[in-house]
């Protein structure tokens, strides 16, 4: 058994209206030192595959479904 923790975030240069709004709220709350906020998705996968090809499989899953390469990038950790 392995647990995969996947982070999908917007690519640099892609506008993030949600992140901007959160940043605006933080600024209003007095947190003046926040330079930027970027929103993303966090996905957990439990799998029976704990073999060598797990990384390859997760890459494939991210490329095909979990992230849209036009606007998003991803990273993951395997535990």
């Amino acid at each position, binding site marked *: 058994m392995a647990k995969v923790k996947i982070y999908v975030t917007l690519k640099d240069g892609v*506008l993030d209206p*949600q992140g901007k709004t959160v940043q605006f709220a933080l600024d209003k709350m007095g947190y003046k030192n926040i330079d930027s906020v970027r929103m993303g*998705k966090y996905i957990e996968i439990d799998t029976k595959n704990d073999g060598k090809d797990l990384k390859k499989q997760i890459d494939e899953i991210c490329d095909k*479904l*979990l992230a*849209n390469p036009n606007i998003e990038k991803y990273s993951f950790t395997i535990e």
Partner: protein
Amino acid sequence: MVKFGVVVFPGSNCDKDCLWAVKDVSGQKAEFVWHESKDIMKYDVIILPGGFSYGDYLRTGAIARFSRVMDAVQKFAVKKNKMIVGICNGFQILLEAGLLPGAMLVNRDLKFISKFIHLSVENNATAYTNKCEKGQILRVPIAHGEGNYFCDEKTLNSLIENDQVVFRYCDEHGKINEETNPNGSLYNIAGIMNKKGNVMGMMPHPERAMTKELGSTDGNLVFRSIVDHVKKYL
């Protein structure tokens, strides 16, 4: 008569409106196509309607593009004389499926926008706009939360160079700028087509602008253009 197939995904909600627009208003043949259908070659035009396919989970259109019918749609797209139109969620599905370039982001102001807007016909030499004048202003409603079109600079330049931009958001006088851009779309893009010109996606809903009771009849221009175009080779 032109044969339309209107795909029904779990969560489609403009499928009946589209069927009504092509069958009852435009007087053509039209049927619903279930999302598990494999054979769609008997149709001349496939419409991917608006709605919230698969609850818009993950990303709009991301799950729907893996429906069985989408394999058939991919094959349909490369056939001669076959046309595909994606409206709203249908446009989002076409982007996710890679049949059109780019992606949709959340609207600039984070709100779901449901209102009449104005469109400028950027290219009238298409299968979808041949009944329009170039620069003609259409009044059609939009209803979406994620219609903020985005693509990289290279893609945008190629869309412009190849006349693939079909509709742009404007005001009632045809003015195109940030103020007349309802959702933050790059280059005020409301509708684009592929290079071959047989796949088109648009966020506004022409099927909701078919009779004067609905507030506008401009949607007819889109469907009449399609019908006329297809009839040429029937």
